């Protein structure tokens, strides 16, 4: 969902130049323009701050309190006790570990498959429209619906896949269940990533490919030496957003296993702490820790890989 947001920011490069020229020419108009700009952005900014920044601040405050919904009057400030409780709990580390495993495997598999799919859509000789339309179905379908489809497919006595594997019940075993969660995630997210990579492929000039071919480069060499480097920005952006998306995984797990048999992600843990344990303080501490993890991942991508830092116009 969010991947497309990135590079557009970079596309603003041409804008400021235009604006500067304008300001010099007519400073009267520039003032009005500035005011209009703020006016037009204000509603969006206010909504975004009100719905994200304020609640996150509030979550920080809640996370420092002992706050059990069953005993709301007993709420009191406890400092970092909630964090200590979460960080010393094996449940948190297990959930984090599961989440990281799911994230890394899904994203790697998705990257390979979506690259193949992108090449297919880019190069196939016929039926291009059909393929593009069909693969939009996994993108558009409600995650919960897709998760139910996978769940029933693997339910003994009901599912065709379970029947194929000797009426097994893989969703009741940790390892198999995690594989199915990854399968469901890959099925849903690969088409979207493939569309982004296809857009990147379209940027690789056909001439370069031909020149490399003339020089005797094999198909593989052309892919690794010509196509991949030119696609790097598109790949990094797709990777960044897919990684963050996978890290937030919730819907698939909730439907497939509900986090049973040690398959819960950090998001599932946070949800359970709020709605099953009714513990707002601990739930908020988990929320903040997840937020910090996401921030770290984003930071590593942008700094570590020198990813086309999304939103940073200056870099381009």
């Amino acid at each position: 969902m969010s991947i497309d947001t990135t590079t557009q920011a970079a596309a603003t490069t041409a804008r400021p130049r235009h604006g500067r020229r304008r300001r010099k020419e007519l400073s009267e108009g520039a003032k009005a323009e500035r005011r209009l700009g703020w006016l037009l952005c204000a509603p969006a900014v206010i909504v975004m701050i009100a719905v994200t920044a304020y609640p996150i601040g509030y979550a920080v405050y809640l996370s420092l309190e002992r706050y059990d919904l069953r005993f709301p009057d007993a709420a009191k400030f406890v400092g970092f006790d909630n964090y200590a409780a979460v960080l010393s709990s094996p449940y948190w580390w297990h959930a984090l570990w599961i989440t990281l495993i799911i994230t890394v495997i899904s994203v790697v598999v998705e990257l390979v498959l979506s690259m193949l799919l992108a090449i297919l859509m880019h190069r196939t000789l016929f039926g291009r429209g059909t393929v593009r339309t069909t693969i939009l179905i996994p993108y558009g379908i409600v995650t919960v619906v897709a998760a139910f489809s996978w769940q029933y497919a693997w339910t003994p006595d009901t599912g065709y896949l379970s029947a194929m594997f000797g009426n097994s019940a893989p969703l009741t075993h940790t390892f198999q269940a995690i594989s199915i969660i990854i399968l469901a995630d890959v099925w849903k997210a690969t088409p979207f990533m493939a569309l982004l990579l296809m857009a990147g492929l379209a940027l690789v000039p056909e001439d370069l490919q031909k020149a490399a071919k003339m020089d005797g480069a094999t198909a593989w060499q052309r892919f690794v030496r010509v196509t991949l480097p030119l696609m790097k920005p598109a790949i990094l952006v797709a990777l960044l957003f897919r990684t963050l998306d996978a890290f937030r995984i919730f819907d698939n797990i909730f439907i497939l296993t509900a986090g049973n048999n040690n398959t819960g992600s950090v998001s599932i843990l946070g949800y359970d702490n709020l709605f099953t344990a009714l513990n707002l303080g601990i739930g908020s501490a988990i929320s903040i820790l997840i937020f910090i993890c996401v921030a770290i991942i984003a930071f590593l991508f942008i700094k570590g890989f020198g990813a086309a830092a999304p939103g940073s116009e200056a870099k381009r």
Partner: protein
Amino acid sequence: MATTARQKVGWGSANTVAVFLAIVPVLWIVSLSFKDPATVTDSTFWPKKWTWENYRGIFKTSEFTRALINSIGIALISTAIAVVLASMAAYAVARLSFPGKGLLIGMSLLIAMFPAISLVTPLFNIERALGLFDTWPALIIPYVAFGLPLGVYTLSAFFREIPWELEKAAKMDGATPFQAFTRVIAPLAAPGMFTTAILVFIFCWNDFLFAISLTSTTNARTVPAAIGFFTGSSQFTAPTGSICAAAVVITIPIILFVLFFQRRIVAGLTSGAVKG
């Protein structure tokens, strides 16, 4: 390029595999929804006996029909608000020069990456305090907030494609910047806004986490959340058929959207990546 028969077969089978993998899970849930309750556990891919019973069943209870109304209403309202607010901001980003533009873009990006679960706990408490919990606004508010970044980025990419000379011409003719926006640019921007609306709608339609956390009754519970909590008619019957029928009903509009607007959706999703 010379095409050999071998190449044709190769690409053809690759196409087939891709299409097959994409639609099998969808066909499976359709098939389950048409299975007779007595044969739902025969684990065949296609029903032996087709029946509409599951569909009749879900439309008999208000649990599903009410959820469907909630889903449609909440998604449409959220989409409308998000697209209007986002197009104002995107116009400013694409067109005007003002300090703080980078900040807006950075903020949108941050929100696009935001883990929804981090907001669920505080929003749950805030909405309970405000009396919004389990109402339509309870979901519309976060949907608008998360739809906005998507809208701002997609729309600002579309807005950059518009022939801006027309705006200048309108201003020459005495239109204020605001008039130039509503009279000249908005109609030209309509296709981009429509595409953005589809993407935001799909996002709202798909949401599950907010829907189960910020609602508790049929009052505002959307279909994904409702089917997540469907129960059978007695505790011994699994609601498989009902869940699948409900799932098919909410999948159909999306598949129709996708079939009709395939080009637009692809353009919307990739507009950024291409021009980056």
